[in-house]
């Protein structure tokens, strides 16, 4: 039996019942391993930004008559791990799990995690056993991206568990390339390969996948060095030389994950675009990259350049004089800001030293920065409740703009201001809102991408955030492993990995 042991950065085993928590790492390891969604991310290449491809749906299209009705053709011949057949009934059952509070399978926890992906859905109709229609509340051209996050779990298994998810948890069942084997709470989740996976190309090349939560970077490094695990996420930059010495493979690739400051733009000082620009000009991003031993790249906006909506945005290259001048012009000196940062957290990289560097660079041009470190979960709270509920001018909150919904629409459109969603800093731009509406109603991918690109360029021109770096998401692999392709995505496909004995 070949075993792949992975050290995750998560503090605990993510939920594996189909609504992963612990951030996108949960999706990565307890989501796309056990489950599939209607659409899936194409993680087979490290050259281009990952996009969605058919998953449990073989194809989808917008109803030509009704731009609020998506037709999904479901994949035939797929069964869940427990033998339960995948079909339209199962799909509808799965939507009701989160959408219908009266359904026996309704799960409040799942709503918390997955509800956001189905907010646009008005209803789901069964057209035939392998065809469903999903009616959205408004035209939503980007809907398939949302469907790439919504996992389908075995309705038979939940029913057999008497709709008690705590019972279901003992034997969860999806359609994914791995089957659940066992769990030791807080310690390890063990999955075994699904020989009968519908996509033969993705049948795991190893027999067993063991997932271990190890939030401490140094612990992960020690575990890899002492041969307790084969694959660690996010080794700390300073351990990389040592890992290399020990023959470990260090893999990095750019992917849509920005490490930046969200700015509160409805109050001083960041309501003044000159102050925002000054901050951006003050960043010596290369310094940061150096400090991180090259596991990050400089960011000039929230997206990475391989994403289709990158466009040709304004660039804020390091120019401290200009920054100082802008600040003076804005009449903000010293420009006092208070920034909420976390001490650790999923995707936050090394928040303490990095923030201190930012602080130093900002202060060099005339800002006066007060860093307020807090626990990661506390910061999530600050993020969710919106800038107006706190006294921060900015927060250091990394996000993964993997798709235009999360990366552009929900970030900048006025309607997504808190408490609705994630426009933390109350950014508002009528023209951008308008473009957004058009994009959602535009079902031609090329035209839609053009609209989205324009939106993105607009937000960057407004210096709506303080862009700092993109994480290269380093991973360290034991020399025993081969075949891993690191996709430009938050999600990764572990199935091709071969473990040499």
């Amino acid at each position: 039996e070949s075993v792949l042991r992975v050290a995750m950065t998560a503090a605990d085993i993510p939920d594996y019942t189909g609504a992963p928590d612990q951030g996108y790492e949960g999706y990565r390891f307890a989501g796309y391993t056990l489950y599939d969604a209607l659409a899936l991310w194409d993680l087979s290449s490290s050259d281009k930004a990952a996009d969605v491809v058919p998953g449990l749906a073989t194809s989808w299209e917008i109803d030509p008559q009704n731009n609020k009705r998506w037709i999904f053709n479901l994949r035939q011949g797929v069964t869940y791990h427990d033998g339960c057949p995948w079909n339209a009934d199962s799909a509808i059952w799965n939507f009701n799990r989160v959408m219908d509070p009266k359904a026996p399978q309704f799960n409040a926890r799942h709503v918390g995690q997955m509800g956001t992906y189905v907010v646009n859905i008005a209803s789901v109709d069964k057209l035939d056993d392998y065809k469903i229609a999903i009616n959205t509340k408004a035209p939503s051209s980007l809907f398939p991206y949302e469907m790439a996050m919504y996992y389908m779990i075995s309705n038979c298994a939940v029913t057999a568990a008497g709709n008690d998810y705590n019972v279901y948890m003992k034997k969860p069942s999806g359609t994914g390339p791995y089957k659940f084997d066992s769990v030791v709470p807080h310690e390890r989740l063990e999955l075994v390969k699904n020989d009968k996976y519908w996509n033969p190309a993705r049948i795991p090349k190893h027999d067993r996948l063991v997932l271990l939560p190890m939030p401490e970077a140094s612990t992960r490094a020690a575990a890899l060095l002492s041969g307790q695990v084969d694959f660690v996420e996010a080794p700390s930059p300073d351990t990389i030389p040592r890992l290399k010495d020990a023959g470990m493979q260090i893999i990095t690739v750019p992917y849509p994950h920005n490490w930046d400051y969200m700015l509160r733009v409805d109050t001083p000082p960041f309501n003044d675009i000159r102050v925002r620009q000054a901050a951006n000009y003050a960043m010596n991003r290369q310094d940061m990259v150096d400090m991180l031993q090259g596991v990050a790249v400089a960011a000039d906006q929230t997206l990475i350049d391989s994403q289709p909506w990158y466009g040709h945005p304004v660039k804020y290259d390091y120019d401290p004089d200009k920054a100082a001048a802008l600040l003076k012009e804005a009449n903000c000196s010293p420009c006092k800001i208070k920034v909420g940062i976390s001490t650790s957290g999923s995707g936050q990289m090394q928040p303490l030293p990095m923030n201190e560097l930012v602080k130093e660079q900002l202060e060099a041009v005339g800002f006066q920065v007060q860093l307020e470190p807090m626990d990661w979960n506390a910061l999530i709270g600050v993020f969710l409740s919106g800038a107006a509920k706190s006294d921060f001018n900015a927060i250091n909150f990394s996000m993964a703009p993997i798709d235009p919904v999360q990366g552009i629409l929900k970030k900048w459109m006025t309607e997504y201001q808190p408490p609705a969603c994630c426009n933390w800093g109350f950014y508002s731009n009528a023209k951008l809102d308008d473009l957004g509406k058009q994009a959602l109603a535009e079902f031609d991918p090329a035209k839609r991408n053009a609209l989205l690109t324009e939106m993105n360029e607009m937000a960057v021109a407004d210096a709506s955030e303080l862009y700092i770096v993109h994480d290269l998401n380093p991973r360290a692999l034991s020399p025993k492993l081969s075949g891993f392709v690191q996709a430009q995505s938050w999600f990764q496909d572990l199935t091709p990995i071969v473990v040499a004995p």
Partner: protein
Amino acid sequence: MTDAVANSLAVAPSQSAPTARVRSYWGGVWQRLRYDYVTLFCIALIILIVLSAVFAPWLAPFDPYKSSMANRLRPIGYKQFLLGTDEQGRDMLSRLLYGGRVSLLMGIVPVILATVIGGLFGVVAGYYGRKVNMGIMRTMDIFFAFPSVLLAVAISGSLGGGITNQMLTLTVVLIPPICRVAETATSQVRNMDFVDAARATGASTTSILFTHVLINVMSPVLVYASTLVSISIILASGLSFLGLGVSPPTADWGLMLSTLRQSIYVQPLVSAIPGVAILVTSIAFNLVSDGLRQAMDVKA
């Protein structure tokens, strides 16, 4: 006649008084300490540490918060960095000096606060006995039901980080044991005849407490409190290490240890410095309190 008697009785002491020089209690303590070279050395060490912490702004060669990416993780003795630099290129020596301030503060302030508060409660409980004692000591028992680390972690987990919160946490944790020591010492003193003698003069309770009880309770309590300094330092650094203590970028030994943990493969020695600092300080305090206990223990 009577005078003659009085005089005759007074004869001997003048000639054969055992000690020519009058020596106070503390004088006696000092006499014993004088030969205890280990303790003396440790006292000197502590004085050195305290002084270097107090004068950190003048002693530190660099700004402890000034980072320099060009000079990350330099080894000990690299150019002007006597103790190397940390993961942000900040001078370790400077940070160590400044960190000493926080660590000593964490070691000393909570102990002082707890000594005052716990000592007060303990003395009151011990002196008044009965119901007051019941009330105070049972409450303390409840806090005693939590092992100190657990209590510290739980409280600081609840209060959140920051210097003030951490000091508060440690104070709360240290109060019950001090209270207990004070209570025991007080009830011992309370049963001594000299307290009864004082009561027989019609003195008020406050007067007795201050003139007779406190002065005697003080030394056991102080000796005990001195053992807590090192415990407090270690606890504080543990909390910082867990991320429950002082918040970054404050230079604090525990926190430095925690952040430098990532760099242990690059600069093992530099990463070990804060740990060594904690260890040495804690050993010094422990040995001093041992020495003090021995010097103060000798029965009068």
